[in-house]
């Protein structure tokens, strides 16, 4: 199944994950493994870019909840950026804006990491 593609880049000390396609119960484990790998390597400043993500299911949303506590305990954070309106609606309905920084662009996220 190649309807989900995950890319990763390091910019100014933060790890940026690029999601593309469909994030659902089948593809969520890929994202979980990627974030898990970062946490294991002590990378706690994570930006997830939703620029090319078309769909997210409840299983996809759950991935962010798996690590957020541990990351915040380490003074890190996961910041979510570049969501399409439809994807944002899903996050919004669930109340994620009250739990995560949901921002427009990578730059916003990076500057937030720097001021923190």
């Amino acid at each position: 199944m190649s309807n989900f593609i995950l890319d990763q880049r390091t910019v100014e000390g933060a790890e940026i994950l690029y999601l593309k396609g469909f994030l659902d119960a089948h593809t969520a484990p890929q994202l979980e493994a990627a974030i898990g790998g970062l946490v294991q390597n002590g990378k706690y400043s994570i930006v997830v870019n939703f620029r090319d993500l078309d769909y997210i299911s409840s299983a996809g949303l759950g991935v962010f909840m798996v690590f957020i506590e541990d990351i915040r305990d380490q003074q890190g954070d996961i910041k979510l950026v570049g969501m399409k309106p439809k994807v944002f609606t899903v996050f919004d309905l669930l109340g994620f804006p009250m739990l995560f920084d949901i921002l427009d662009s990578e730059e916003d996220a990076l500057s937030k990491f720097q001021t923190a």
Partner: protein
Amino acid sequence: MKYTSNDSPFFLSTILAGIGAIVSLVLLIVVDVLGLLVNQRDPGQPTFFSIVLALVFLGSAGITWRALSKSDPGLSPYERLISAGRFVSIVSFGLVVSSFFLPDDLGHPWGVMGFILAYPFAAAAVILLIRQLYWVDTLVLLRRTSYTSRVRKYVLPVMALLVLLGILWPGSSTLQITVVSVAGGLLFFLFGAISGVSWIIALTRKQKWRAFGLACLASINGWVLFGIVIGSNAVQAALRAFIPGVDYVVALVVICSTMVFGRLAFSLLLTLPSAGIIDRQVSEKNSLSIMGSILTGVEDLDNLIGRVLAVVTGVHNRSVAWIELAADGDGVPFAAHRGLTEPHFELVQHQSSLSAIAAPLRQPLYIEHLAEHPGLKDLYMQAHGFLQSLIIVPIELDSRRLGTLYVGHPQAFTFERESLMLFSSIAGTTSLAVQNNRLFDRLLRRERYERELFLAREIQQKLLPRNYTVPDGFEVAGYTSPAFEVGGDYYDVVTLKNNRCCLLIGDVSGKGMSAAMYTAELKGVVLAAASESNSPSELLCRINRAMYGSLDRQIFITLGAMEIDSESNTVRLARAGHNPFLIRSRSGTMFVAPKGIGVGLVGSAVFDKALEMREVELVPGDVCVMYTDGINEAINEEQVEYGNERLEQIIGQTRQESSADFILGAIVRDAAEFGGGAPQHDDMTLLVVNRTGYGKLSEQYQEREVANAL
């Protein structure tokens, strides 16, 4: 045998016949002894009365014997031969030995002691020889043909009649007729016996040797006995005194049975050289038929392979065999052996040189001598005592390698090339049987799983609310349909602490069994929390408090709750991350989404603070719809989403007097129509609340209209 010893008529007649035999023999002896003592009559010239007594004795003794001896029609020719040969040998030997105890001067003149010795001897000899004739008869009948049947039907009675005549009217002319007729009948018998011995070909080598030995013994004994009957005056005198002329009958029977056995011994001798090949062919044939039964049977893999190994090792004496099967899917590799000790099995199993040869094989390979194979020198040294020649057969199905069959022997150059064909065929059948076994196993596991799913579904159905009451003026309709057997959607109708009715709709993240288990937990928590809560927001906060921490980190539950206040015609709405409420009123449709976070995502500090409650007035004809994302995110075959807009539209089209059931049906029908043939990929749940009474309003309105018109 039709009767058993438990049948009383049989039992009685046998006893009577036995008594008759003993009484007639004693009477015969008494009559002849009296004749000797009183009239000085020679027993060699019997009276009519003594002959009748002798015949009565013969008849009743024959009946007793036949009743007591058991003949099993299921016996194979070989078993009959063995038992007949043994019997004939013992009888002949017994008669030869006991004839030495007869005094030589039995005949002239008769002494009382010799007389008393001679009569039981003659009686025993006659009965045993008739019995022997009966055995010859069964041997002849081993292969029943129309010829042998005819002999039995016509020749035997004629023979018996002539023998009887010869006995009753002794004289040289009748004696000649008797001898000629008996000899003629026996010739018929002999011809039948000699022509029908093909069954001995199929005997195993061991059986042939055994049968040959017994047949030789029986015929040698027979010739010795014949010599004694012809040559010993005492024996002849004893037999003639008992029944005149019977010495010829005895001699002929002895000749006949001796010839039958001699002929058998000769035939057996001829087939002995080919016995090895026949043996192998027979065992090959047997093994193939056993393999057929293995294929059709259903049993576990251990038994199955055990039976295959038994067949394989049964073909060659002292051979050993083992089978290795590769792991099937998520299973484990399988190996079993027969004829090896555990350390030897360990040794061959972990022999990498052997697996290196076996792995690429597509055809059976015969290694006549391990020492001659360049790759197996090591194995040859280590396995010297128990393995010298080896056949390796790949077990394949549709060119998919399942494993390997190894057949070995402690001696080199043991197997014939032809055996490769057999083992190859066995390996083929084994592959099918293994495949069957695995498929059956999988089927069984799946059936068990499906049964459990079915039960889980039934239990989940019982979690849905039944017999709930809603306040007057309100109507509720609910619908849920899991994507799989069980799902993570939930709806309920509960009563709060303030006695108001509260509707709940929920969706556990994920699908299937794990989600279903959480809905069961949720149901319990909801029931407990409802009786403590005075508002939908309080209810949701309590539910979050109870479930946060008990859910896995990535699992959350979205919940929507609606409290109905029938006094003030309002509903109070609270939402924990769930889809918005869709309300249709006179002014149109709108989504109502009070703020709130999904249950299980955060602790109560954040959750409670974030949770909003909204109050909405519902007047008659207004409708509030609660739904899970299986409805609005349903995707059809063109990958188009159902969407909130279409939901809004379809609800907007329903009439204000429509019942909750009707509106629910309209949505469900529309969603089904939209989905077309696309599989449902998420659980769908729908809850429709309708403020009733609109119809009455319009009736009143119409009445007023009518009244105005008048």
